[in-house]
């Protein structure tokens, strides 16, 4: 097969091959589903019998990943701006933002379920809730921007600049704003010794690993599909 220099460069993009680690992801998250209910004990300082705390094993990794994924998109956007001819980097940045949007929606839903069980109201306009709504808007605006520009070169440049700049409000919203205002968010209750016992860590740490592997898997699948679609589009127009 005759490869162009462009496709050679794209082939060198890092990716994890094989099926083994995907089955491992399945096993780890199945363990988290079981362990979240039957290995970790119920929390102290939570509503009712403390079972509401079990959503932490899903909500916290997903919420943290929704920011980490943004950083992944930022890295690809930065690389794309350094090498504007590499449109595959822009596409990867777009894929990361799509998955980040999905994770952000899931973090909002799981957080709202927790709020309903803990405080009796699914939405309270707490500082953490307000910041995640703005974070969702940041993601949505990016996807709207990508969808609005047809020229791939112009789209790549504008989308990358957006990602580079919007990381400032994203960082502020996730890490700073909820800490400088009064918040219902149980960050302090969660880190009490009783709530950070070994049984709790035995589920939470695998949850972090499992959800990260799930992100990598979803990212690779979507990136492969986008590249395949792009190759077919180029062949059709050639």
């Amino acid at each position, binding site marked *: 097969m005759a490869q162009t220099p462009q496709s050679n460069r794209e082939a060198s993009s890092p990716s994890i091959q094989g*099926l083994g680690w995907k089955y491992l992801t399945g096993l780890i*998250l*199945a363990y988290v589903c079981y362990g*979240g209910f039957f290995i970790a004990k119920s929390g102290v300082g939570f509503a009712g019998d403390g079972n509401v705390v079990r959503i932490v094993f899903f909500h916290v990794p997903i919420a943290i990943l929704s920011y980490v994924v943004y950083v992944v998109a930022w890295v690809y956007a930065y690389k794309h701006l350094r090498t504007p001819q590499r449109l595959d980097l822009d596409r990867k940045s777009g894929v990361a933002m799509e998955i980040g949007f999905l994770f952000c929606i899931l973090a909002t839903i799981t957080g709202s379920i927790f709020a309903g069980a803990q405080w009796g109201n699914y939405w309270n306009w707490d500082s953490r809730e307000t910041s995640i709504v703005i974070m969702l808007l940041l993601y949505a605006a990016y996807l709207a921007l990508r969808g609005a520009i047809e020229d791939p070169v112009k789209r790549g440049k504008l989308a990358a600049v957006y990602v580079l700049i919007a990381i400032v409000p994203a960082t502020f919203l996730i890490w700073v704003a909820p800490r400088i205002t009064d918040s219902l968010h149980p960050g302090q209750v969660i880190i009490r010794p009783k709530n950070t016992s070994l049984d709790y860590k035995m589920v939470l740490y695998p949850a972090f690993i499992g959800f990260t592997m799930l992100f990598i898997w979803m990212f690779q699948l979507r990136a*492969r599909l986008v590249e*395949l679609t792009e190759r077919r589009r180029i062949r059709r127009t050639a």
Partner: protein
Amino acid sequence: MGTLGFVMAVTLIIWLGIFAYLLTIDRALRRLERAEQENDEL
């Protein structure tokens, strides 16, 4: 088991469904990529 077991079962079924769906997409994509590669070689 009780209520906790029921919620765990629902969570586990949802995850296994997502997992099977991702595996299906993975296999379909691999097939498409192989077909694409064969197409390029022709």
